[in-house]
């Protein structure tokens, strides 16, 4: 065997650039499923079935609700934008429940965000003593895991005490009704709290320590750092958490049924304008759907479908907002929560 060499100087110009093959034209023997154990084959088949089933169910639900909703969302009820006509009789539209949903959501989230942001900030930045921080953390997890019906009952017990008589209707004999927008709003804030808390905490933990150190090195106090440096940079996280929380509030029914009186119309209470509505009872889209379904008293499935469709649009819209925030903040390099469940 000898060695053949081509001296570089004798070589010609560079060979032309080779274009890659468009695809592997050669047939390759890949993992053929015939060699798998039968348990593997069943698992693989079930996996595909599960994946396709998820798609089918999701698309099915969306299409069905859209179909029914558009079928029953008549012009005389309300249309493309959610202002129903002001016909407040029982067979009319659902302006009141819609207003109720909006009111309750706003109330709930306005209470939840400051509390959750404060708690998250305290846990990430201070967390002294350590045992207390762990307890608060577990506590919020417990709230997240509590069924909404239990929170509703708790709210009832709490707000039927005399001290809270100012929050709802109080009868002559001193018995506190305990059901109003204010009381329901407070409990709604509890169910939105864990989501805002988790998002904010994730955002704060993602801020690298050199950002804080730079601020301290400039002579700013911790409080000022939090206020001017840290919190503004987690705005996207707070917004994401808030949007998720609002979605959860808008979709909740149990608390509404127990703590809002679930009346069909807004029934203000008292004489102070503005506060009257808050002290009064009302309903939301969720309780409206519940009542109009065969499970409730009404038996107007058409109205139920129409209201459910509007509710779905609101919730999907809120989740879309979450997506937008996540995407725009990802562009600027921040990280927010992923599939955003519970």
């Amino acid at each position, binding site marked *: 065997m000898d060695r053949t060499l081509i001296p570089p100087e004798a070589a010609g110009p560079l060979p032309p650039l080779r274009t890659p093959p468009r695809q592997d034209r050669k047939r390759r023997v890949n*993992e053929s499923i015939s*060699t*798998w154990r039968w348990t593997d084959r069943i*698992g*693989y088949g079930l*996996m*595909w*079935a*599960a*994946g396709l089933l*998820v*798609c089918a169910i*999701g*698309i099915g*639900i969306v299409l069905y*609700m859209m179909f029914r909703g558009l079928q029953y969302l008549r012009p005389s009820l309300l249309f493309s934008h959610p202002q129903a006509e002001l016909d407040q009789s029982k067979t009319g539209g659902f302006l009141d429940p819609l207003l109720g949903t909006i009111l309750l959501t706003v109330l709930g989230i306005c209470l939840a965000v*400051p*509390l959750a942001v*404060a*708690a998250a*900030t*305290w846990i990430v930045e201070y967390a002294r003593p350590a045992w207390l921080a762990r*307890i*608060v953390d577990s506590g919020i997890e*417990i*709230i997240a*895991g509590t*069924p*909404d*019906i*239990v929170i*509703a*009952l*708790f709210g009832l*017990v709490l707000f039927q005490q005399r001290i809270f008589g100012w929050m709802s209707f109080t009868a002559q004999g001193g018995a506190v009704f305990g059901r109003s927008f204010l009381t329901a709003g407070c409990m709604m804030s509890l169910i939105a709290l864990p989501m805002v808390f988790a998002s904010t905490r994730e955002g704060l933990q993602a801020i690298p320590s050199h950002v804080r150190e730079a601020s301290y090195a400039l002579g700013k*106090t911790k*409080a*000022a750092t939090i206020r001017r440096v840290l919190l503004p940079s987690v705005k996207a996280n707070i917004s994401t958490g808030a949007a998720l929380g609002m*979605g959860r509030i808008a979709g*909740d*029914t*149990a608390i509404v*049924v*127990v703590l809002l009186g679930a009346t069909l119309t807004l029934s203000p209470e008292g004489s102070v304008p503005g506060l009257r509505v808050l002290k009064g009872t009302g309903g939301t889209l*969720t309780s409206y*759907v*519940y009542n109009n*379904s065969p*499970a409730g008293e009404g038996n107007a*499935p058409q109205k*139920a479908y129409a209201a*459910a469709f509007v*509710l*779905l649009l609101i*919730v*999907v819209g809120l*989740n879309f907002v979450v997506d937008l925030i996540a995407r725009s903040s990802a562009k600027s390099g921040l990280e927010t929560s992923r*599939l955003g*469940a*519970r």
Partner: protein
Amino acid sequence: MLERLREPWTDQRAERVLGALACLILGVIVFMIVFVAVRAWPSFHANGLSWFSAKGNVDVQLSRMVNSGANPTPADYQIGAWPLIYATLLTTVLAAGLGLVFSTLSAIFIVEFAPEGIRRLIVPIVRLLAAVPSVIYGLIGILVLAPFVGNHLISQGRKKSVEFVIQLSGTSLLVAVVILTIMITPIMIAITVDGLYAIPRSWKEGAVALGVNRWRAMWTVTVRAARPAILAGAVLATARAFGEAIMISMVSGSKGFAPNPADGLTFIFEPVKTLASNIVENAESINAPAMRSTLYAMALLLLLGGFGLSIASWIAKQPLKKYGTRG
């Protein structure tokens, strides 16, 4: 004084204020447990341990409470809540079990085997399903699924066979479990997918390089390593399942009936009522003291059940940590 507030806050003050707000949340929880327990006490006191047993028709007992008015006698407090507890356990365990299988398979599909187009479709779908309110699931259940089951799946013969005990319309255990599974699966899928992505790809690559096919490599290495995450997702989903009140009350037939497995297949077509759905349905009559106490007792049970789940999951995670799985 206003000037003092507008000065830049000292660290100490900020810490105290923030800490106080955080502890406020803690206070809320403590009060919650205490208040609920206090209100629940009369019901437990009047029944003793027989509260948990089956003492006859739950619906009859509940309506007696409603009718008892403002001054109930101890006899009015009687309740044997076993059918409700049994129904809660049944729906939760079945839905969690089905959901676990369903969601693990879907998560593997999303992470590894789905073609790009399907993956781009399925991820938003999962997010959407997680966001749909329970009342809409209930609506679809009662207006679509229940009539379907009632008219097409339950034969006349079957209805006749249990006619003397219970009416079989479409609202049943089957519909409740199916829809509950659909409700809790997206949460589990989300958490499992996150857990699977957190496992280093080098492990799976090492397994594939040893001549193991991709499915087996995924299953025996990655899924096995992600077991803590899967468990966490399952616990979260189970907690949601047994607290679900509205959807169950819409689709499950609302009869305090304990389905009898000895009935064979008819068992899944029988109506049920769970603890949570019972609370929601009787919430209007909560002013009657007997009813109030009973409902709070059930709420306390749900609360303690949630705690129990968290503790059980913590216990279950411990042996998994031994070989260095990601926690």
